[in-house]
């Protein structure tokens, strides 16, 4: 009985450790991502992710940002000049490719924007960025 309790408690403790370790990793990724955002993306998408009406789309409340991860990884790698409606609005600026960012920087910045400005969505991993980058070649 005692054995069972000890095992149960230690499993629980390990689970909590793993979870909080993950949570720490996520917070670290978000913190790094914020720095990438401020350096590379903020000038167009603005400090609050609000974008610029008719010029640069918002990342706050964007169905793109919280949607398909492959699509937004590709947007960061290849830029975007599609002029298609983004949540019923059109934007006239060109977004340049940012393929000079590392896989980790792209994972971090997208994890940051998916968890900022009121957005809440899953993390983007380095492995996911690698897949999209290799598809490009």
């Amino acid at each position, binding site marked *: 009985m005692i054995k069972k309790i000890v095992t149960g408690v230690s499993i629980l403790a390990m689970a909590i450790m793993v979870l909080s370790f993950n949570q720490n990793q996520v917070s670290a990724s978000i913190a790094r991502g914020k720095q990438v955002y*401020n350096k*590379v993306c*903020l*000038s*167009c998408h*603005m*400090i*609050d992710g*609000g*974008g*610029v*009406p*008719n*010029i*640069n789309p*918002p990342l706050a409340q964007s169905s793109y940002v919280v949607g398909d991860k492959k699509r937004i990884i590709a947007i960061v790698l290849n830029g975007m*000049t599609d*002029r298609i409606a983004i949540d019923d609005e059109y934007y*006239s*600026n*060109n*977004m*340049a*490719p940012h393929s*000079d960012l590392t896989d980790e920087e792209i994972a971090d910045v997208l994890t940051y924007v998916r968890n900022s400005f009121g957005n809440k969505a899953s993390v983007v991993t380095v492995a996911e960025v690698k897949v999209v980058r290799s598809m490009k070649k």
Partner: protein
Amino acid sequence: MRKYYLLLLFVSIYSCTVFANNHSPKNNPNLPQANAGLQLPAGFTAITVAEGVGRARHIAISPQGTIFYKSSRLVNGKGIFQLIDKNGDGIADSVFGFGNYIGTGIAIKNGYLYASSDEEVFRYKLDAKGNVINPSQPEKIITGLINRHQHESKSIALDNAGNLYVNIGAYSNSCQVNDRTLHSPGRKPCPVLDSAGGIWQFKADKLNQTYGNGIHYAMGLRNVVGLDWNNQTNTLFVMQHGRDQLHDNWPEYFDEKSSAELPAECMYELHKGDNCGWPYIYYDPMQHKKMIAPEFGGDGKQSTTDYNNPVIAFPAHLAPNALMFYTGNQFPEKYKNGAFIAFHGSWNRAPLPQQGYYVVFVPFKNGKPTGKWEIFANGFSGKDVIESTRQADHRPCGLAQAPDGSLYVTDDVKGTIYKISYKK
């Protein structure tokens, strides 16, 4: 028990007072504000004459006083709106929509209303009362102008010799091999300049003109949204939107602060054949010099004497969206023949706070700016500090003078139309 009643009474009276305080005019955004929320020089007043239909870009008023504006978004399939004021109190009761295209440019000359989409220019004949005779069948004056989305609006102005001038904005920031990309070099000669990045002149009354029929009037202008014909000098004046992203793309030469303050937004007086130097140069308002752009070998220090000089320069990135020479008699003497400029407000000053979102006045004498420009109407944004462009409640975009000499200002965030008047 009685005590409780007293207490209850007291509490309810107290909460009523609090409630009432919260709804005093000062705190209630739904009650009309003095001067439509604008700050103006002494003696001027402002009212809102229309609100909420489309994104009001440029505006034109006929000699009879009919008012039309162009919208950059369709509302019920329409992109031009006429203010309708049945009871004559100066405030629109409704709008009449026509024209099934979005755009920015609109102007009235010699009994015609001219309006532009982002590729074409149309005109509509006006009747003796200043109303459009056939709203669904305009004449197509110009067609086939380049629209590659960036700087796509086609602003228009007319002279007194039967010509119409159109801005064709550059579909590029600084003519880099890869637009807006870190360290991407400039293309020399810049291929954009053959069909954009300048002003073209066409005949105001000939149908279906395109590049081949027009005159490439002035080049090296990145994007002009505000332009007006000056009847004193008989020349075209334009306001250029200067380039963006000096720091983003050339961080070794420009820090965030210098990138927020460079380059100037410039006013040019144009003559046929002028070249204002985009993309090869930009104007530094602190040094008063034309600087070689970093895409073309500049380092923030090298200047040149080539190309036109601006007649006056304004702070960077303020986005001058309308220019209008005041010829009315209502405003005090100093305003006569001077220039009003609507600054739409910046985005490319981030991470520094944004600026602009106001109407400026520039005094002129004998066709030249004299003295300093001043902020004429401020408060459109409704905020003390704008960090992110979207925080601005209103952004001034178009200007027009009414027959009585009052000034109309449009806003393309909420479609508000302001009227500014002066009384001695």
